[in-house]
């Protein structure tokens, strides 16, 4: 199961919610969503859970305190070295 599930994320500065699941295309399923600007997007008032197609997502904001940046950097560095070889 993906380690990020259960975190609160903000997708494309538009929709905030709890990450339920992700798949290989980075399609996102969120639960308990809230829209950052409900006046601009009134249609989401009666929607609690949603599925967002991965191809339209530009940013996903993760809670800063949940991310261990050192660990992430080391892992990314290792991955890059492995790819080079």
């Amino acid at each position: 199961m993906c380690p990020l599930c259960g975190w609160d994320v903000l997708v494309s500065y538009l929709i905030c919610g709890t990450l339920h699941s992700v798949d290989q295309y980075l399609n996102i399923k969120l639960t308990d969503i809230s829209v950052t600007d409900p006046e601009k997007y009134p249609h989401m008032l009666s929607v609690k859970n949603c599925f967002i197609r991965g191809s339209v997502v530009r940013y996903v904001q993760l809670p800063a305190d949940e991310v261990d940046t050192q660990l992430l950097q080391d892992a990314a560095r290792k991955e890059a070295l492995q790819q080079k070889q």
Partner: protein
Amino acid sequence: MRFTSRPKMNYMPGTASLIEDIDKKHLVLLRDGRTLIGFLRSIDQFANLVLQQTVERIHVGKRYGDIPRGIFIVRGENVVLLGEIDLEKESDTSLQQVCIEDILEEQRLQQQSRQEAEKTKHLALKERGLVMPRSDIMDEYGVQHQY
């Protein structure tokens, strides 16, 4: 319409599957800014959707109007978002439903004023030597588009 309850099976654990959403009422946001509401009947790996009893909902401010559309097959690449409609929440929204003709007229006026504002802005930028790329409806909040 299914009248028997289906056991909750997880076909692919950890995947953002739409299987559980079948036969439920959904709101679909398309890349061209349209909103469709209907019962999700079929899906596939590209997020191609089949919607039944579909209604195209047009929102202008706090008012909306519905155009009945029947059965829709939506190509996955045009889908931005698919949201399950909570039937309880649906009944107590502050939005007011109006007839189709009224909402279409309001939409036309809204598009008109938006286009005029866009035109003056574009002209002002052009005079200063800047050319703005054509931005699409869903682009403002960083939702990607290709046209």
